């Protein structure tokens, strides 16, 4: 079966520490002027029963993200993926990445605009 060439990012939010390397790596790659960026990091403090809470960081590619098409054509990883300190971003074919979702909890799959 011919592979689809639709690409995406698999985001393992269990391990995102909120370090913002992805955000600034993107700014550097594209020379964005702050506050523009191709990927943001959300801090989400989830409320849990019994007055408990849970802290999650979620990298979220913005409308500006082009999945580093020029880099990936050269065989390089997108700037955010390359520099992610927690190695929690994976670039690839959406179909392949979808299969990865089954292997581990707490991940989201992102397809570009």
């Amino acid at each position: 079966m011919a592979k689809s060439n639709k690409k995406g990012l698999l985001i393992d939010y269990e391990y995102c520490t909120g370090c913002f390397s992805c955000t600034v790596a993107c700014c550097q790659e594209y020379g964005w002027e702050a506050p523009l960026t191709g990927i943001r990091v959300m801090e989400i403090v989830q409320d849990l029963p019994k007055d408990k809470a849970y802290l999650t960081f979620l990298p979220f590619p913005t409308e500006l993200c082009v999945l580093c098409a020029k880099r990936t054509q050269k065989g390089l990883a997108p700037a955010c993926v390359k520099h992610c300190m927690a190695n929690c971003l994976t670039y690839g074919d959406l179909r392949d990445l979808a299969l990865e979702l089954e292997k581990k909890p707490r991940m989201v799959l992102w397809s570009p605009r």
Partner: protein
Amino acid sequence: MGKTTIVKTTTWSAGPGCHGGCGVLAHIKDNKLVKIEGDPDHPWNQGRLCARALAMTQYIDHQDRLKSPLKRVGKRGEDQFEEISWDEAFDIIEERMKSIRDDFGPESMIFSMGTGRDIGPWICMLAYAFGSPNVMFALSGNACYSPRIAALDTVQGDYCVFDAAQWLPGRYDNPEYKVPECMIIWGYNISATCPDNLFGHWIIDLMKKGTKIITIDPRLSFFASRSKYWLQIRPGTDAALALGFLHVIIKEKLYDKNFLETFTDAPRLVRNDTGKLLRESDLVKGGSTDNFVAFDIQKNTFIIWNTLNQEYSIDNATPSLTGVFKITLLNGNTISCITVWDKFQESCVAYTPEKVEKITLVPALDIEKAARFYAKAKPASIHWGVPIDMTPEITPLCHAIAALWALTGNLDVPGGNVFTRSAFNAVAYALPGAEGVIKLKDQAQDKTRIGKDEYGPFNKFIWRCQTDKVIEQIFSEKPYPVKGLWMQTCNPLSGIGLDPKLWQKALEKLDFIVGVDLFMTPSLRYADIILPAATFLEKDGVRSWWVPLQTINKAVTVEGCRPDVEINFELSQRFDPDFKWETIHDLFDEILEPSGMSFDELAKKGWALPPENHASRPYFRHEKGLLRSDGKPGFVTPSGKFELFSTLREEWNLEPVPYFKEPPFTPVSRPDLFKDYPLILSTGRRSPAFFHAEHRNIPWLRTLDPDPVVEIHPDTAKKNNISNGEWVVVENWMGNARFKAKVTKIVPPWMVMATHGWWFPEKKDDPLFHTFESNINMLIPMNEQGKDGLGTPVKHLLCRIRKETKGVEHGEI
């Protein structure tokens, strides 16, 4: 237009601001940095890189970079400077500092640095060439890292860190390595990346490989949410928790009996009459004070531990770990003794989980479960953050934590806490436990070092002056006046200085101040001469802090700026006619000599790991005899053992076994203050965007964390009529500061967390850039260090909060 070249180099300080270690690829075109990337081949960061390093293009060519030496022409603190040449600046500095040296002695100049800088060696080089022993790390109680290092040197002879295979080729895949089953994260928040010469995200690598986490933190950190056990501790009570862990481990016999018997001082006898160790000299005429006494169960007799030979006076000794023994001394008195092990257990026995719950607010059941899990996990490691240093009784706390990894058999084992020394023993300058290439010319020069005579560790492990005593002496002028300050990449009015108004007065009082930095700061406004320094990309350097051994390789030049090492080298030559080195590379080569490589040879490789069986490479070095200079098994302590009862602490007239003491400003120790200031004030949680007081002027970084923030629990916010995002005043008996409220369940209702290091480089209407406005140090006193001169209460003060009255208190909002 030239083409782009790629320079491989190593991060350290100016730029990302950090303690360094990451391998980077700097893309250079026409002497400009066009891009920076993590070096995928580098074993440390493996291609990864932090936000601050990735923002280097905005930093290096920033419009506000200082690019010419400046001379003050107005009053201190004003915005009145004129540009001068480097030669003129050096001439003025030479003349003024030599005149201070002639009139008051070299010790009247203090040489001050900020935290973790790569200028440590170069600032020592300059101070020592000038003749002053007074090198200062400007934080009260010297409370960052060196207290922990000194504490561990005291009880176990060497520092140790968690093992993430950083010494091994191939890292985690190396067959020698074991992934820890359990890691305790004690007061460390990862998003701000890298503490204490470790790459923070190595812990994430380990978690993915199965390591389970115990988190000790009052805040709901990344780790807290992902922990098997999260112990939400009341700040400042860590020693009680550590003693509680030890209580459980000892009571349930979860310790490593072999390690206890073989490698600790457990069987030594302690006199009940004096509380001191029984020594051979107490028993025998001509007996050594360095030799200790134990009781042999099989032979039913007292035996002597010969410290020099590291052996007992009889073969096949079976020293008793427990018991009460009567013995007649040389002077005819009969006394009773107990073993060190019994004495140590006494110090833990009162700390039942129930009692520890009352002190720490951590549920007793969680303490038991976590202690059991840690003790049974093999291997297990502990990573501790700077909050450990930021309490006055830091050494007893470290002693208790060190006993945890020692008694559970996790010391210098793969995946445990492993001893760490400068790679290849290439040491640039004296740090605790190591003598470097750069040192005082003779010990006589050290006599005037401030705090040295008062505090034991400052005589044995810490070669800086005691910061609180320096500030005191600036005002008292006793025993000698302080006249000048060399202040290099150090901004006490905004970051490192507690009670910054006191620092301001101190700066006003001095005769001559030199400031070396990359941008104008509030503190530089007090300097007479300002010298513009360089980023790590603009210089050569060496880095031997733990592993690997690395070079920093110059990639670009920024016109007008000079590297710290070059500034200090030229002035050292001017101050010292016998200055040892001709060129900076001669100095680098000498530092690197133990590795067998020159600077150029190492620069070609980029980095190097020490070979197998080298003293700076794990594992099992205490068993193999790799730690001690005599080649015998054991540790570099006065007795050769891991000391549950510290001989040095005994010598310094300090408690030789661990204890908990309530810190000075808590709801428990100061109920009077607590009535008016009903919240625990904790400060200093890190931001990934900033290194302490730096980076507020870098747009990509500032946009991530635009305002000074205080974290407030929703219940507490409601009680004080405060909404998310409102400006609030945080205040106590010392002073106040304004922050934006971040209403969040990350903090408990009884504590607020205020961020530190805030000033506003963009607010140029004030020469001091509004540095006292949102400066949490306004609420923190100096001079609260522990009995050994170390530690300071930064993490546990008291405060109250209220909504700011708009437009009234601080002008326009």
